């Protein structure tokens, strides 16, 4: 038998949103509401006594595990250092165009993407994924951009020739979908998209 405290705790941990007593009642229909409320209260006290990193707080709509405010600076520091190339779709597209068409000017990028706007260029420059690479010898001598060494390192490439070609990608994409994923059983019945 699983203890209800632990079951609730696992839900609190895995949930994206605050967890309400009403929601928990749906999960545990055989339990009384008071029982659930008591278990939550016990958990809260446990947290407040034992832990000095997180607490169980009552926020809009329910309960939620949150880290204590005194640790927030530490957490921010951690998140800041974490290397990541999380890019927006727009930035990814711009980076892709630069990678495959370098050196390239901003008007040329806009032309290819069919979208104006150079804010993504700034982001990519800041992330050191692209850099300026001389000026194009045409009217106005516009600045050209190319990918950096950091770009290669980040994507685990030795040189640009290791980028897959469009032809190679098309070969992979043209393969029939082979249902590499086992369809979840009776999938059609469950069309909940959260």
């Amino acid at each position, binding site marked *: 038998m699983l203890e209800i405290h632990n079951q609730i705790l*696992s839900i609190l*941990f*895995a*949930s*994206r*949103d605050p967890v309400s007593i009403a*929601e928990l009642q*749906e999960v545990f229909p055989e339990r009384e509401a008071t029982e659930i409320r008591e278990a939550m209260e016990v958990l809260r006290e446990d947290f407040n006594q034992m832990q000095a990193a997180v607490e169980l707080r009552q926020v809009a709509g329910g309960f*939620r595990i*949150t*880290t204590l405010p005194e640790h*927030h600076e530490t*957490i*921010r520091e951690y*998140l800041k250092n974490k290397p*990541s*190339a*999380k*890019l*927006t*779709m727009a930035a*990814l*597209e711009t*980076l*892709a*165009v630069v*990678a*495959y*068409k370098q050196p390239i000017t901003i008007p040329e990028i806009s*032309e*290819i*993407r*069919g979208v104006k706007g150079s804010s993504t260029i700034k982001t990519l420059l800041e992330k050191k994924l692209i850099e300026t690479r001389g000026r194009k010898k045409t009217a106005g001598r516009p600045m050209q951009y190319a990918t950096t060494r950091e770009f290669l390192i980040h*994507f*685990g*490439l030795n040189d640009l020739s*290791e*980028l*897959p*070609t*469009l*032809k*190679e*990608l*098309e070969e992979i*994409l043209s393969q029939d979908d082979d249902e590499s994923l*086992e369809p*979840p*059983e*009776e999938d059609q*019945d*469950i069309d*909940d998209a*959260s």
Partner: protein
Amino acid sequence: MDSNLSREQRRAREKVTGQKPMVFPAPVRTEQPDVQGLNIRLEIFEGPLDLLLHLIRTQELDIYDIPIAQVTDQYLGFLEVMKDLNINIAGEFLVMAAQLILIKSRMLLPPDPSEEDDEDFIDPRAELVDRLLEYEKFKNAADLLYERETVELGVHARGWEEFADDEKEIVDVNVFDLVRAFHGIVERYKEKVVIEVDHEPATIEEKMEELRRLVALKREFYFSMFFESRISKFHIVLTFFALLELVRMEEVRLYQKGVFEDIRIKAC
């Protein structure tokens, strides 16, 4: 969020959340060999090696001394059943069938008298056995991964991230994302060109400019892509003339594999 799940939905979920593997070929394999009846689910075989291993392991045959005649007959019988059931037999199964027949016939040949003793003798089955043993290791590794996956899918990480990044941000990108993004742009561009061709009056010069850009993007494409959407004959002719002009200026080259093949357009 839907909080009103039907009973069916709950039941479906309970079924899938079960701890033990369910849709899994291995248990089928542990059943008693049923080669006579051959009523094994066909899709469970990932390829000819998988099928052969199944025949060998379920009948507890010695893999180092495969009774090749017996196994070949069973293998071919299996393909027959597949054919009778109108199941499309992948080419690999047929190639293996041919190999088995070849090995079987070699086994029937008397040993070459010029070969002094057994040491020079190469068993015609040797290569197949090696492949089967090699494949079996990975098959086993795949079973292991299956079990690990089953456990890990039941394990949840923190659902909510404090100080999470913008919703706009997508996950870490890799090389595959990069090439796919570029591919997407090229496809989009192609569509745009086709639409423009369709709706706007164009001169040969404009058409040439479009083609130049397309060639710069794609390096190579097929003339047929201009027929992909509703398009007037006039524009096809115009495109064709523009192409010829580019060929004349040695900016692009045209290729054709055969008389009726599609024309390939490539940058010079």
